[in-house]
């Protein structure tokens, strides 16, 4: 069981998709960093991630780690968003057999898991196929 601070401090990224765009070279860091991985610059402006992108790769987790066992099987993918940022997320609201590299995905806000019987509810982003699923705007 983790302390709540670990979840609380990631809220800007997990709930509001806040990234940092380097003022020097324009590279976007998600999550934000102290040093830009592109130019080692230290000045950033807030950037909210693009809400949609394409599926780069995907798998279906059938043997899950602790905390996810009752959710398996579930699909996880890497999505390249329209602003170039890549992120890992569960792929929800679809039959995994219909997934294909290149399929358009949209970010949605979901519950990811619960830490034990009365533990912390872990929220964050998942992605759903754009051509399916209930569209709610990504957090801004």
């Amino acid at each position, binding site marked *: 069981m983790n302390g709540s601070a670990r979840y609380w401090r*990631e809220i800007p990224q997990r709930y509001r998709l806040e990234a940092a765009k380097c003022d020097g070279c324009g590279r976007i860091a998600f*999550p934000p960093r102290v040093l830009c*991985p592109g130019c080692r610059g230290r000045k950033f402006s807030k950037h909210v991630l693009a809400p949609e992108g394409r599926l*780069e*790769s*995907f*798998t*279906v*987790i*059938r*043997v*899950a*780690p*602790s*905390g*996810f*066992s009752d*959710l398996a099987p*579930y699909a*996880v*993918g*890497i999505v390249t968003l329209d602003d170039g940022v*890549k*992120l*890992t*997320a*569960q792929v929800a609201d679809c039959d*995994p057999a219909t997934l294909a*590299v290149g399929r358009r995905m949209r970010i949605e806000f979901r519950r*990811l*898991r619960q830490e034990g019987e009365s533990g912390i509810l*872990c929220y*964050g982003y*998942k992605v759903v196929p754009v051509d399916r699923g209930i569209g709610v705007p990504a957090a801004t």
Partner: protein
Amino acid sequence: MREVAVVGVGMNRWGELWEQSHRRIWTEAALEALSDAGVDRVEAMYVGCMSGGLFTGQEHLGALLADELAMGPIPGTRVESACASGGLAFRQAYLAVASGAHDVVLATGVEKMTDVDGAAATYALSTAADQEYECYHGLTFPGLYALMARAHMHRYGTTERQLAAVAVKNHRNGHRNPLAQYRDEVTLDQVMGATMVADPLTVLHCSPITDGAAAAVLVPLDMAKRLSPRPPVRVVASAHATDTIALHDRADLARLASTEKAAEIAYRQAGIGPSDLSFAEVHDCFTIAEVMVVEALGIADRGKGGALAESGYTALDGRLPVNPSGGLKSKGHPVGATGVAQVREAVMQLRGECGDRQVKDAKWGLTQNMGGTGASSVVHIFRRA
């Protein structure tokens, strides 16, 4: 820097060693290496161990294992780089001898993985990935390598059958290794038809959960004959490189940049290229890993690693045998021990002591050990002295 030689290696039978503790497994491998080298004292020791804490609840392993060795207050250093912990511990021992800091050094690796259940082991291994941005979303190591496999298949047309050929080859080699955990041979159909873990990887595409240890004794090359009766094997290259911890931060999901970089440095140090190698022991934690590693090492052209395994080029009787020991796949993968066990295989192959899995006329051997999805890679090259 001084030239360095390995004069002794040790390893026990790997597997589910219920009756043996973490420290006992380690001590037996260490003693075997000392006995093989014909030395009874070392000046310092290094131990590669990924997660004594999560697998057994025990940390502070440098001190604990130095104590078990009963050689007095020698410096004991624990090295962690996830599944590359063993290879990196060997490199630290190499640097200690090469720099002149010590003359006789013990490099070891150990992992005791079966004291926890499968879900806890899966979690412990997953700590090598980005906890907040990969594991938070339910990703596992089979899942991460499945993402790499899918990307490789999509880009290059690599097939499940080609990936399965890696498992078939490595189990065929491991069948001849008396210390391997799973010595059974497997067929392509068995690999592809086994229980799915993370699509497209079945359980037979994955290396197992293993208890085990391995050890090696390093000395300066010019002192080898005086310090040990054993034929020395030279360490002609030692290189280490890193990459992003999260797979999604890489420009190319189907490339192992850390292995490419470490290999480039190692080949330059050794003054050879991949075509000069007699064999390679590489980090096949999953079948796709071997495919991507042989490409990163320049043994296969980019995108052709799967076809190379299928062709027999990397088989024991092929042009360049890869994983003559059976690899992680068949020999087992006690994560912290793996990198040192690769060194043991290289040394024994170069001494011509591998029996019916012996590579003919072995002169140059390469080992490649990596952590996570390739966030760290360690490459060594050895030569028959």
